[in-house]
């Protein structure tokens, strides 16, 4: 790639690959702003001849979409808060304290992170029925901790291993207790890690499908994933532009988080795979 022509050719090639990969997502956005009749053109039009937001309006006023969205937001925030609080304490313990069984426990966390949900889901279903909380958002929060807690714990542990021991030791020498040192020294240092772990945990909860399918069977508690799919199944004739509009709306929070996370990407979703 020394010559200018070579560089241009390579750039063209690279961007073609990128755009082909992103095409389904571009197509989703384009379809969502086309009027219904334009979808049935043969050959299909690429750019909409006429841009309309009617599908978004219908989605909000004529479908239970907003209810699903509210459920998903409650579910996402609750799961994230519970999991990140518990995991921050746990990760701090795993990194800074020494007690028998600590290494085993860390291994256990990684093991549970790999467990298939279909193994846990039947007993969890029975548990929710027995507790009388099936069909509630709360039951989903409990179920989501099965994958979100090991994930957050593992990620936070790798973040916290990066904080030098000396910082806490210095605070202790100055007369702070262990908990004071945790609050005043470790937490501020770990804050970027905690924030990105929270965002990744939120994405996991936002995108989850299987538990929601099995544990929740009413529109009152249904999150977006199963909710939007039920719109597909229950429709008499499938309105693709409406579904594409729903898909775009569902992906908006991810795009916002994505913009924030650029520099943490490798650490977050590479967790377990690549050491952060």
């Amino acid at each position: 790639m020394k010559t200018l022509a070579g560089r241009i050719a390579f750039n063209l090639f690279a961007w073609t690959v990128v755009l082909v990969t992103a095409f389904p997502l571009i197509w989703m956005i384009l379809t969502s702003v086309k009027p219904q009749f334009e979808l049935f053109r043969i050959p299909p039009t690429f750019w909409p001849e006429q841009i309309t937001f009617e599908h978004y309006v219908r989605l909000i006023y004529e479908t239970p979409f907003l209810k699903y969205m509210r459920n998903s937001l409650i579910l996402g925030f609750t799961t994230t808060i519970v999991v990140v609080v518990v995991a921050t304490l746990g990760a701090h313990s795993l990194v800074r304290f020494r007690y028998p069984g600590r290494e085993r426990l860390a291994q256990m966390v990684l093991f549970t992170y790999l467990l298939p949900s279909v193994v846990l889901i039947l007993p969890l279903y029975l548990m929710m029925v027995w507790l009388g909380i099936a069909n509630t958002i709360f039951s989903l929060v409990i179920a989501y901790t099965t994958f979100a807690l090991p994930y957050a714990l593992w990620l936070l542990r790798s973040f916290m291993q990066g904080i030098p021991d000396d910082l806490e030791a210095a605070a202790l020498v100055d007369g702070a207790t262990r908990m004071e040192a945790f609050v005043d020294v470790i937490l501020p240092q770990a804050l970027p890690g905690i924030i990105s772990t929270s965002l990744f945990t939120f994405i996991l909860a936002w995108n989850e499908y299987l538990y929601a399918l099995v544990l929740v069977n009413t529109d009152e508690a249904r999150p977006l994933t199963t909710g939007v799919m039920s719109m597909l199944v229950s429709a008499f004739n499938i309105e693709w532009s409406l579904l594409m509009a729903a898909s775009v709306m569902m992906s908006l929070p991810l795009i916002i988080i994505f913009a924030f996370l650029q520099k943490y990407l490798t650490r977050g979703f590479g967790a377990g795979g690549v050491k952060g």
Partner: protein
Amino acid sequence: MSGNPLDKRYAVLGAMLIAPTVLIFCAVIVYPLVSALYLSLFTIFTPTLRGSFIGLGNYAYLVNSPEFWRSLWNTLLWTVCTLTLQIVFGVAAALMLHQNIVFRSLARSLILFPYFVSTVVAVLVWRWLFNDLYGVMNHLMLMAGLIKMPLDWLGSMPNAMISIILVGAWKYFPFVVIAVLARLQTIPDALYEAAKIDGAGAWSRFVDITLPQLRDVLVVVVLLRAIWDFKEFDLIYLLTGGGPIIATQTLPLMVYKDAFGLNDMGRASAVAVSMMLVMLSFMVLYLKLAGRGERESQP
């Protein structure tokens, strides 16, 4: 960590901090895991949750069930094919995005995005692309002269299997890109400079420098993705539902079908447990590797 000033007197405090984690783990992971083993010894009618003990009856049934073996075969076929595509495209895309191209960070974001969108969104978009009458895929293939008639992408074989493999590759190859890209950035430039001076071409630099440097990360990525692809439910269930008939039914789908379609929770648990036994070898291997990396990286 032998010279650590934070000594063992604090063990109790440490145990208290980890206690909530351990309690939650016991309630939502350890108990269900044991319970799944226990349930697999019963036959349980899902709507009433009444059951009777049948010992290893469910497992005996599965060994003689062609459906179970077919599902296992489907799971292996899906895992091997989609994983291969993920690795090949993932490494290629990572090498490409490692070069200086214009708007590189935008290009990276666009490539990574399929991994972050919900499977539900990915499936809806692909079902629209695969639509037999108005889908873009059929249109483009017809235009290119590759096919004469519109294809039924999801409803017939072998198309359905090929379709889920392709969509799986599209959805999950960015994970490989993330991991490989991170590793590429740590290969010292001096290695390439030295090879250039020795007269090595682009291809031999790739084979002799890049690939060996990537080996460790690729082993880990392959294991991790193999585990995750093996247990994939959402993508396959939402694209084909296991159909036509059971042609794309993998083990996780069989668990769901047995439990909530055929209403036998005991047998479903037996399928789930069998599936986990198959996965266990991969999981143990991964834990070993992860443990080794851990010890090396600790001072």
